[in-house]
Structure formats: C-alpha cells, structure tokens
C-alpha cells in the first residue's frame, strides 16, 4: 500500500514524534522528581511512554517496544502508588530513556532497522524488574502490527430500524476487533432519549472509532455489507499519525456520566488529551519556503513602490503603500512562526545539571529565568550544544567542591543560573555560576606557554579571558570526561560566530563567572545599514553600527588606524579591501562598527541609511568568500552584499598580530579600543 518513499516519510515522522515524546517524558520525570505528587506530570509521562510504545509497534521496532513496555509497567506502578519514586528509580528510568533515545537515533529511515545494544538492553530490562521473557507480551503486540498497518477512522451511525431487523450493533465491533486493533472508541449515546421518550426497540447508538488494521478499505466496508441499508458509514484513512479524529460530541453526551468518579481519564482518553493543545506540526523546510517567499515579496513590493513613485500617480502610490503595509505585517507574522520559547531548551538543562553534578559529586541548584523569551527555532537548535558546553564547564571548573566552598564562606550547594532576555534587538543568554571565577593569571601563563600570547603583551583581563575560546586551550589540570580536553570552548566560539553572535565573559575572582551570549533574534532578516563604494552596495548589520562620521583627508595612518577622539581605531578601506574602483572625487565616510568591546572603522563612500533586508545565502560558488556573509536584493533590483563583521574583525586581528613589533609596544592599540589597564 505504501511505496518505500512513503514508508520512509512515515518513519521520519515517527522519529520526530519519538524525539518529542522522549523529551516530554524526560521533562515530566524530572518534574516529578521535584514534586512527587504532581499527578499531571505522572500522567503526561505515562502517556508519552505509552504513545511511544504504540507508535514503535507499528514500525515493528521490537527492542524499542520491549523497553518502552517495561518502562510503562514501572510507571504504572508509580502512578498507582505501588512503587515510590526513589532517586535510584529516577536514574534508572533516565537511563532507559537514554537507551530509547539511542535506539531512536540509530533507526535508519531508509530500511526501518534499528541498532540495539542487546546486553545493555537486557540489563536495563532486568533492572526494571521485568524478566526478559516478560517482553514477549510486548512482542505479541508487535507481531500483530506486522504487515502494512493503516490507521482508519470510522464513524458509524445506525438507523432506528437496525435492531428490529435483527442486527446487533456490537457484533460489528467484535468483527472489527478481529480485523485489527481498536485504538479508541466512543459510543455515541447522546441520541438515546430518557425512559419516557424511549422506543426500546429502536436503535439510537453510533460509534466513532480508530482502528489500526492491515485490512483494505473493501474488507472494512464488507463488515457492514449486510446492514448497509441501516447504517451511515464514514471511513477515512488517517493520513497523519498526529491528527485526531474529529469527534462529533454534542454537549448532552456529558450528562451520560452521572458519577464523576466513573471517568477513567488516564489511558482510554489518551489520543485526545495527549495532543490536547491545538498545535499544528509543520515541517521546518515548509516554513523556510514561506519565509523565503515573503522575503521575495518584500523585495518586489519595494520595487513596486519605486515604480509607483516614478510614475507620479497618487492613486497608484496609495495602493502600493497599502500593499506594503500588509506585506510588512505578513512578514512579521511569518517570522514569528519561527519563534519558540527558549524554555523548552532550558528545561533540558535540569538533566544536564543533574548528571554532571552527580558525576562530579557536587551539589548544584539550577535556576532558570526568562524561559518565555522567544527565539528563532534554528538559533535555538544551534545554540543548545554550546550552552551545554558552558553549563558543564561551569559545573566542572567554575563551581568548587563543597568543602572548598565552605572554606570560602559560601553555601555548600553551588548555584547555577540560566537567564535569557531581549536587549536592543538581540537575545542575550547568560550562564552564571557562583564559583571561583576564571583564573586570569593561569590563563595568561598557559597562553604564553602555548605560544598564543607574547610574554610581555599587554592585555586587559577581558581579553585574557577570551583566550579560553582559542582552539587547543584548556587549563584543567586533570582531563575529565566532562571537560578539559580543550575541544569544548573553541567549538562554542565558532558556533556562536556562525550565528552572528558574540560571547562575553564577566568573571569576578572568588565570586563567580558569567558567560553572556548575544545572538540576533533571527537569521532570516536583519536591520541593515546600507552603504556604497562606487556602484557597489554593502549592508552592515545595524546593531553593530555605533556611529558614522565624515572622513578627513589622510586620516588613515600607515598601520591602518584612524584617530577616533584621540584613540586609535583600526580601520578598513572597503574599496581597497574588496578591490573595487570607487569614485576618487567622492567624499568618504567612516562607519564605526563594534562587536562586543571591539571597535573598528569601515571607510565607505556613501551612507544610504537604514533598511530591513532579507538575507539570501550566497551560492555554493561563493561560500569560501570571507568578509561577506550573504546578499540581499534592493528595491531597485540591485544586489547588495552583507558584510560579515566578525570575520572582518578577525582579519584585523590577524593583521595586528602579523606586526608583532608593534603589538609589543604599549602604544599599540589593542582591538578592544579601550585602554589596556582598567
């Protein structure tokens, strides 16, 4: 019924779902560990594992089903109060979830196979208290699901005359039950009148059910063939695992359950409550396509606006302006679609902190704030790993062991804080600890020993701290399996650079250390500042521009520095840098850009002002170009290149380093543009 492409697609859908479910399960388990009486958490946890087992069954992923099954059994014990949720049990369950995660990641969507680590799994199964043979039950469930299973949604309404003609409605259900598995069923009894109005031999019932079955549409219709005059049947193949049957449920249906304690909401109502929130899952690439198109729309409206200005027709201009306004709104909404709250990513740090602090025998309290801050989904995905590095690093190096902390007069329990907030068009993510802070002296010594720094170089503490982000730098005396291998921090730096972000360190010896990451809100659109050299246009990300000024003649010295209010400012002549032919008579301007604490000047010809622009990535051919991060199309149809300021800064840095003679003299400005001692 499915060709292999469709199958692969289904399986990929499952993988996505499985990851979400496992994450949900883990979050809820950790929540439960904090508050063991959180009934909502246990139910959500149970549902997630149960759904995972069910879905895995469809794809015959047996090891996954077996483990999920055992986990579910344990959870049932906890939910029903037969087992206490001890820390040991939580650890075991977390291990199981890791194992499940590992299995999910090992699934090959092409072939639908999965690599299970049998001995480890056996161990987990035993630890979970189930004998290995016990998983036979789960396997039976899977065997039943072998073959091409479809999910069908059936809506059946019976005619009043059905019973009088000798049919028994429940016999259809018994028959369907043999063709497959009835996943959920609702008997529609709202049409049953009260006793006074009841015709006891008329039929008032109807059913809505979902059925997982390998049977074809014809086979299912055949079930009702004999009674086809007496029922109305709607049969629908579920396209999507996620979509829930549209249950028609008039309000009277509720009054049928007279005793409130009769409702057993946990498993039977699962398909609806699990996906209770009205969310629509959309493939990320579809969203990207939409945003890309909206970007095109912005560009073409700008073009239309220009044309209407040129035509001089007021009516035309007015309508174009209306269009433009709507396009603006559409663009804002479209971009918001990509925004997700950072809290989801933050929550996973409970687990990281728990694991790392246990491994190191440290007590750590994690505080999260600003969880509702919104950020582009792609950014969140790509910043998560660097954040994990920073958190691990803080626990490993930053926070001292308990006795050392007590000796320093601090509480034995270390505190780690994750914070997110918006700040002038950027999002700021902070990882702060109350540990010992960075050891400036040791970093400096290490850097000198590794030849990264001249022994007599004058650097501010800030600049020394930033050295820990250089490749191959690690000051930990003992290499642990958590950090200290010198791979983490430079990976953090390059990940942040790629996202057009910057990282800063605030460290107070003995007080703690804060790593502050600043990221643009979205990767798709920037507020830019348009400049030109001759006929070539460049866009500078607006939030990096600090000021603009007119260039005075021969202001640039031989070392490439300008004098900015008495301070030397390393500068680049854009025209010369990119080998462009500018207009020699044109007046030239300087745009001062800053990145964190660094400043530099860009010498350009014309300043054309602000514009909001959609970033188009450069084609494959131009990907190695340094100094350019993308392009955009102006309203006039011209192409403007977006300057990659961080990479320009790096080039300036290299230029400064290639003149070591100058670097050693105190008069040589550091890139920070600030005085070295402070």
């Amino acid at each position: 019924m499915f060709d292999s492409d469709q199958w692969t697609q289904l399986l990929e859908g499952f993988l996505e779902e499985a990851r979400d479910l496992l994450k949900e399960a883990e979050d809820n388990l950790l929540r439960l560990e904090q508050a063991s009486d959180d009934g909502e958490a246990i139910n959500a946890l149970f549902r997630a594992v149960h759904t995972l087992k069910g879905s895995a069954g469809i794809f015959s992923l047996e090891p996954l089903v077996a483990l999920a099954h055992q986990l579910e059994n344990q959870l049932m014990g906890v939910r029903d109060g037969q087992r206490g949720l001890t820390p040991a049990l939580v650890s075991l369950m977390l291990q199981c979830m890791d194992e499940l995660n590992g299995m999910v990641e090992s699934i090959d969507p092409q072939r639908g196979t999965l690599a299970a680590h049998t001995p480890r799994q056996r161990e987990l199964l035993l630890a979970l208290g189930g004998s290995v043979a016990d998983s036979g039950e789960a396997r039976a469930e899977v065997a039943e699901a072998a073959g091409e299973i479809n999910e069908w949604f059936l809506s059946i309404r019976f005619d009043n005359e059905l019973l009088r003609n000798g049919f028994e409605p429940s016999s259809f259900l018994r028959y369907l039950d043999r063709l497959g598995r009835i996943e959920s069923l609702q008997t529609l009894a709202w049409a049953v009148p009260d006793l006074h109005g009841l015709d006891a031999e008329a039929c008032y019932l109807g059913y809505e059910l979902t059925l997982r079955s390998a049977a074809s549409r014809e086979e299912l219709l055949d079930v009702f063939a004999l009674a086809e005059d007496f029922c109305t049947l709607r049969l629908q193949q579920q396209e999507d695992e996620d979509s829930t049957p549209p249950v028609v449920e008039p309000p009277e249906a509720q009054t049928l359950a007279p005793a409130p304690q009769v409702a057993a909401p946990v498993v039977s109502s699962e398909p609806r409550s699990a996906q209770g929130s009205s969310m629509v899952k959309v493939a990320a690439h579809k969203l990207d396509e939409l945003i890309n198109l909206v970007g095109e729309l912005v560009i073409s409206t700008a073009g239309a606006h220009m044309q209407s200005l040129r035509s001089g027709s007021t009516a035309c201009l007015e309508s174009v302006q209306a269009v433009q306004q709507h396009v603006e709104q559409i663009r804002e909404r479209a971009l918001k679609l990509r925004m997700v709250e950072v809290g989801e990513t933050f929550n996973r740090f409970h687990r990281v902190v728990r694991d790392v602090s246990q491994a190191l025998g440290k007590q750590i309290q994690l505080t999260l704030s600003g969880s509702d801050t919104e950020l582009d989904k792609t950014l969140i995905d790509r910043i998560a790993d660097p954040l994990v590095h920073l958190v691990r690093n803080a626990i490993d190096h930053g926070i001292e062991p308990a006795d050392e902390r007590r000796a320093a007069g601090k509480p034995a329990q270390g505190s780690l804080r994750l914070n997110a907030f918006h700040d002038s068009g950027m999002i700021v993510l902070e990882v702060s600890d109350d540990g010992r802070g960075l050891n400036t002296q040791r970093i400096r010594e290490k850097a000198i020993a590794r030849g990264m720094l001249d022994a007599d170089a004058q650097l501010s503490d800030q600049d020394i701290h930033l050295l820990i982000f250089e490749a191959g730098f690690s000051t930990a005396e003992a290499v642990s399996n958590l950090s200290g291998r010198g791979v983490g921090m430079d990976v953090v730096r390059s990940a942040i650079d790629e996202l057009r972000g910057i990282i800063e360190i605030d460290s107070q010896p003995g007080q703690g250390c804060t790593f502050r990451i600043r990221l643009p809100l979205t990767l798709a659109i920037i507020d830019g500042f348009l400049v030109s050299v001759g006929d070539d246009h460049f866009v500078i990300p607006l939030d990096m521009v600090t000021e603009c000024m007119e260039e005075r003649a021969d202001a640039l010295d031989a070392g490439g520095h300008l004098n900015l209010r008495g301070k030397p400012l390393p500068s680049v002549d854009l025209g010369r840098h990119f080998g462009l032919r500018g207009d020699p008579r044109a007046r030239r301007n300087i745009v001062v850009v800053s990145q964190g604490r660094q400043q530099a000047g860009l010498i350009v010809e014309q300043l054309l002002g602000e514009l909001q622009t959609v970033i188009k990535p450069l084609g494959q051919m131009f990907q190695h170009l340094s100094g350019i991060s993308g392009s955009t199309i102006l309203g006039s149809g011209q192409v403007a290149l977006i300057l990659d300021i961080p990479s320009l800064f790096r080039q300036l840095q290299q230029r400064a380093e290639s003149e070591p003679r100058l670097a050693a003299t105190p008069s040589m400005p550091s890139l920070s543009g600030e005085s070295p001692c402070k």
Partner: protein
Amino acid sequence: MATVTLHPASDKQPARLDVRGDLTIYEASDTRQALLELLAQDPGPWALDLGGLDELDSAGLQLLLSLQKTLVQGAQVIDLSAQARTLVDLLRLESLYPAGAASAGEE
C-alpha cells in the same frame, strides 16, 4: 424477561435497583414499562445492581443508558455481571462501570 426489583432507600443508602435475567431486544420493551412504573414510585437516586444480569445486548444497554439519563439525580452502577461486562468493555461505556471498581482502578 428480566426481573427488575427496587429495594427502597434506607437511611443513607439510595434505593437499589436489582436487575436479573436477560436484558435483550426481546425484553427491552416490557422492562421499560416496568422501570417506568418503579420511577413513578421513587424518582431516584438509585444504585444499579447489574450483578445478576445474564444476557445483555445493545438494546438492553440502550435501555440502561436511557435509565441513567432519566435518573438525573444519580444512577451509579454498583455491580456488573461478567456477561454484561464484556459488552460494556467492548463499547467502552464508562458510565456503566461499577463505581467502586472504577475508582479502585484509579488509586
């Protein structure tokens, strides 16, 4: 036909309706009459003791649902025979599960 007996309410217990025998399409109409007569004596609440049911089909089930709807004050099922249970299970009719058993499953 099914015998329906209503044991009157005692000080704290609601009246208990005892349903015995078969309750199928063949008995449904007569049983409805019998129930209507009982309703005239006592408008509820009743506890439904379905432990003595022998055979139950959809028509009988419908009658029970209709009775529950009529007894707005309350018609808790306090017992359910094994025969009847198969059908109630199949149809997943929570309102016909014995009250005690359902809440025990939740603990």
